[in-house]
């Protein structure tokens, strides 16, 4: 397993180093920087696995931070990547969404304590956020001050007394005055549409995020309106797999707080909620551009946050476009068109022309347009929650929200 862990900033600084099996000189990171710089100079990104004469480096990049695991012996590479990802997730959980260099520095002690608790001799150990929070309290201004003044520690003396083992994701004796549980069904559409408007590949990836504030040890049973259409699923460990296999219901004792209940994939969806009709043609000295965007099949739900990205060829020298809806700007030969909400009365259109450098060969291919959008209270698959049964005596307040958005939504012009 892991010999060492380095947390690096994009600027080239080493923020944190942690060694489990003897100290490895931090010069090992040089191999990583070399690879990173040479990869970036070619316009690609650094490979996740780097071989050095003695060690192997596995890195993941999240926001502006690199997590670099150093290992020497055989072990599952995905285990390492998963573990680095989990460390990141826990940091997010403790320190908030926008993790950056200075946040890590500020919470230096917490970071070390967390890493120490999460790995033992380089093996992942306690990684359940609920469990960790029992032992290490998340930082806040008051506790930081108190700690500084009185010297008390933020590690609790007691071991988590929750039922360990089979359900280590939930502690006992949780109490809320109002018992609520919220489900967020989030679906993302990944698709490639060719220049004739045909769908080359399309799949819907969904996930269900749960925010659970329930007292006691509730045993929940969730049924879907149409579970058979889920093509492939993966679950949080709390979900009882056999119940799903037999009855297609989700039976689980939820962790406390926010967690991801499941992921699913749906194939065979051909009705896209948005259409994009690009007409881009290049001729001698320049090209004409005309892009139309509109919504369809959305059950009258508004399509919001529409954002179109058009990367023009490298030989482009000037871009001159106008749009009837939303604003647009061109930066580094990439045009970004922020439509916002698609209006009912008119169809958003972006048109104009571009100037190409003289003497250069004409671009062969038209650019691939990336589209982002969001439709609230709508699932493209039609998936919904039918009912939720709770084993506890109280009647929890239940809320279900759904949203459909673009994943990798690519339109070839």
């Amino acid at each position: 397993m892991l010999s060492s862990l380095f947390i690096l900033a994009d600027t080239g600084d080493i923020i944190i180093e942690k060694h489990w099996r003897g100290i490895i000189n931090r010069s090992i990171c040089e191999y990583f920087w070399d690879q990173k710089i040479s990869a970036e100079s070619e316009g690609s990104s650094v490979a996740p696995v780097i071989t050095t004469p003695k060690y192997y480096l596995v890195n993941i990049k999240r926001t502006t931070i690199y997590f670099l695991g150093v290992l020497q012996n055989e072990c599952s590479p995905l285990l390492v990547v998963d573990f680095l990802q989990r460390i990141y997730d826990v940091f997010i959980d403790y320190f908030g969404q926008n993790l950056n260099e200075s946040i890590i520095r500020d919470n230096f002690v917490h970071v070390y304590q967390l890493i120490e608790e999460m790995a033992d001799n380089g093996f992942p150990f306690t990684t359940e956020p609920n469990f960790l929070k029992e032992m290490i309290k998340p930082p806040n201004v008051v506790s930081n001050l108190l700690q500084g003044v009185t010297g008390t520690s933020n590690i609790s003396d007691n071991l988590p007394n929750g039922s360990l083992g089979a359900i280590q994701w939930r502690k006992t004796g949780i109490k809320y005055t109002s018992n609520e549980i919220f489900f967020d069904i989030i679906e993302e559409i990944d698709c490639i549409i060719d220049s004739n408007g045909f769908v080359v590949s399309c799949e819907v990836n969904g996930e269900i995020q749960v925010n659970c504030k329930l007292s006691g040890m509730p045993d929940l049973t969730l049924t879907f309106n149409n579970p058979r259409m889920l093509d492939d699923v993966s679950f949080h460990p709390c979900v009882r797999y056999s119940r799903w296999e037999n009855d297609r219901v989700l039976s689980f004792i939820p962790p406390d707080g926010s967690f991801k209940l499941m992921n699913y994939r749906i194939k065979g969806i051909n009705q896209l909620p948005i259409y994009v009709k690009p007409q881009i043609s290049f001729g001698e000295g320049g090209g004409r551009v005309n892009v139309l965007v509109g919504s369809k099949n959305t059950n009258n739900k508004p399509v919001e946050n529409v954002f179109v990205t058009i990367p023009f060829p490298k030989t482009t020298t000037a871009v001159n476009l106008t749009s009837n809806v939303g604003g647009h700007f061109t930066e580094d030969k990439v045009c970004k068109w922020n439509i916002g909400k698609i209006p009912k009365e008119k169809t958003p259109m972006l048109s104009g022309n571009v100037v190409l450098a003289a003497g250069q060969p004409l671009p062969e291919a038209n650019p691939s347009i990336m589209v982002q959008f969001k439709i609230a209270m709508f699932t493209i698959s039609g998936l919904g929650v039918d009912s939720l049964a709770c084993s506890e005596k109280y009647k929890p307040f239940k809320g279900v929200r759904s949203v459909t958005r673009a994943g990798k939504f690519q339109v070839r012009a």
Partner: protein
Amino acid sequence: MIESTDKIKNNSNQAYFYWYLVFFSNKTGTLYKQTMEKMNTVLNNMSNSRYFNDTSTNVKLTEIKKQLDGPSDKDKLECMKKLIAMISKGRDVSEVFPQVVKNVIAKNLELKKLVYMYLVHYAESEHESALLAINTFQKSLVDKSQVIRASALRVMSSIRVVDIIQLLNDNSTMVLGAAMMAFVEVCPDRYDILHQHYRKICQLLADFDEWSQTVTIGVLTKYARTQFKCPDSTINDKNVKQYKKKTSFYSDEEDDDSNENQLQSPKSKLYDSMDAEEIDIDHRLLLKSCLPLLQSRSNAVVMAVSSLYYYIAPVIEAQKVGKSLVRLLRSSPEVQYITLTNISTMVTMRPNMFEPYLSEFFIHSTDPEYSIKLKLEILTRLATGENISRILKEFKEYVRNEDKKFAAETIQAIGRCAATIPDVTESCTYGLMSLLSNSSQVVVAEAVIVLKRLLQLNADNSNSSIKHENVIMHLAKLLETLEVPSARASIIWVIGEYSHKIPMVAPDVLRKLAKSFADEDESVKLQILNLGAKLHFHNPEQTKLLFQYIINQAKFDMNYDIRDSARMMKLLLISTEKNPSLSGHAKSIFINQKPFPTEISISEDRKRFILGSFSHIVNHSVSGYQPLSDFPEVPPDPTVRQPKQWVPEVKNNIFLREESFYSDEEEEDEDEDEEFDGASEEEDDDDEDSQDELEKFFSDSSDSSTPKKANGKSNKKSKKSKKQVKQQEDNEFDEDMDDMDELFGVAEEMEKLEISSPTTTSVKKVLLKANVSQGLLIEYCFLRQLPEGIENESPSSVCIQLLLKNQSTEQTFENIKIGNKTLIDGADIKDFDEIASLEPGATTEALLFVTFNSLSQACKFEISTSIGNFPVALTPIIGEMVSPLEVDVEEWKGCFNALESKSVSDHVEIGEKLLGGGQQQLGNAVLMLLLENINLQATSANQNKTKIQFAAKTIIKSADLFINIELVESNQVVVTIRSSDTLTATLLLKKQLELLTR
């Protein structure tokens, strides 16, 4: 002072600074104000990074040593934090090792953690001193909290102490997972240790945490390859395809199939029909218990299961993993890269696993470069006659991409498709030729190279649809414009090789090249020389002079390779008279059959490493990598994994190693003996030690109330014969009792009691849930007294009452009876009479006589009804595995003393619930509690009920069993159980302790 505060502040050593301030502000009032100001700034700056910024020069190790020896936990904690901070900054602080080791016994959890952390860091270099701490770790290994057990185990494995593998006996999944990790770390090839735990591990696998799951599955994959026979020996990888036709992927039949219970029916319909070959029951168990993990949220687990299925499942079943692996592609780019690498190797062997997911491998414009290469390779591997048009259509799109490197990769992929699928060779060739007019030199060059390869592959194929002449002519024209040397060289080579097909053009090409020779790249020059030599044979009239001209130019080239070649050619071809013997063979030197170009992709090369391993990704053997062995021709003895009575909680596993405990059970339970032999195999050498340990345990527990000194004495003497020790122990025990009597003032009379269990049944438990069976609820309880008119025929069986209730609204259950039974040896179930029908809402009862013949193994059987068969399991409850025995007080004493050697005992603090009733009521409360939960007969008690005696008979072995309970002090209780059936006694002891501490 202010000066010094400033200095310290500059060092940003805020922690020290703070204490410094506090110290002085108490003493020097004059500086108070200034100090306060400083303090404010400090408080503002006080962030948690203070240890991080600590300049280590300020910390003196001697001071730390002193504080570590001191009494204050807080100081120690501070010291340890500093030490750890220093370690992580690279400073060597190993000199305080002895002081730190001492603190390993600390109660404070945080301190303990930090000490563990420090120890692990220096364990390797300070091996000797680290051994000092081992005792503590060993104590932690039997700690009540599984967290401590697991973490101590991890520390020990990092100090490399091998004999902790016995912890595999533990039933907590947390500990078991840690034990598996330790196994991998310490002795990854000792599969013999695993045999006995194999089934347990398989069954509990789903409850492990994700990390241990990954590691465990890896071990089990290797284990399975050494223990089972190949699941489809008749099927090898090559003819998988024909099998594929038989069952379509994910057809509906499979869904029906999944309804059946996971573990209880090892044979599934699908596989019965599919392969006649039998799969070992354990082999099947492994496959079954891993399958649900494909739905894990952890990528590593999914990968591990896929690898397991790929290697040990029948090929047709291994297909299932494709879908889950494809799911991983959605995760982060890093995961995508590793998954794609693995898929690309799987695809070279079994392309049909991923055929249904072709479009998942289409390239998005945002994919990183490393993924693009792999995706292209996978796409070419997946290409078949049916889907090639889709793939080529995509490729056409990619070739036009602005990233020319990507386009070049695609061209290679097109070439590979063209070479493997004859149907499209022609269209690919023309496609590639159209690319020759591309504006990008890179693209054209790549196309030429691929075309050259295609031409060579099809040169001898007379049926080939490609018109070589056309292609070559086209290429020849390109020489006018193309500048990339490698492509030019390729074209010239092609013209030379096939010059006989274009006899008119070739000499002309040579003429033009002769003109430009001096300006060409080296590789091109060499090819021009080759072309000249070849033409020299085919068409000497037209080219002889040209060739001489070229050779003359080459003779004065800067590059020695070219000069060399020119000289050699001159001797062989032109000045032939000097070397007649050689020049006679000149033709066979220059014009001969060239071998076909073969291409081994890196993905194919990677297949020598286990999928999902690190070695596989880096394509060389990483240290610690163990290759997968082939399935054995003849599988080793499968009985090593035979069911055994694993004791549900083996905290006192020290008992189990003692052979004499099982000596009188030998005839009945041979398996069991085997098990414990197996488990203690490695300890055989130090058998004596383990006995010592055992005796220590005995003396520890049975005379817990005697002073420690006596304890120590008995330990010292334990090297003497065992008997002696036992005797001594007895004496001590008697003394012990006397002591007690004295304590209560008088030697007490034991009064006869005749109370048997106040309840006639045990607690109700659910056998079959209504939501599983579509409405039929079955509860059960153990009957202590049989209803009148019914007799229990066999003394070794227990009577169980089933309460059946139909909870559905319209369903009527008919013909309810017992279906298939899966029982261990010697176990039996006497069926109840068939229940004709059960209306909605109706209830009924049935009696079941069950012989468990085991204290832990459940009886598994099916409840068969008109609606369907439902698998259920009856688990023995230890409290019901005894029956009351009537003896009088004297007899009790006699028997109790006679069984001295078969005694187990322990003492505990009584739980709050029992103490609640006050001291007077305590005796009665204990009495009632035990009788309620355990089917005992209370024989006698003293007046205050501080000493209670029970008698019972064990059901399985019909051995007499005597229990003595004594209340010591206000809340301590000593429980002693004596019986020749020691297993039951041990478990009962455990149960009682549990009850009493509640």
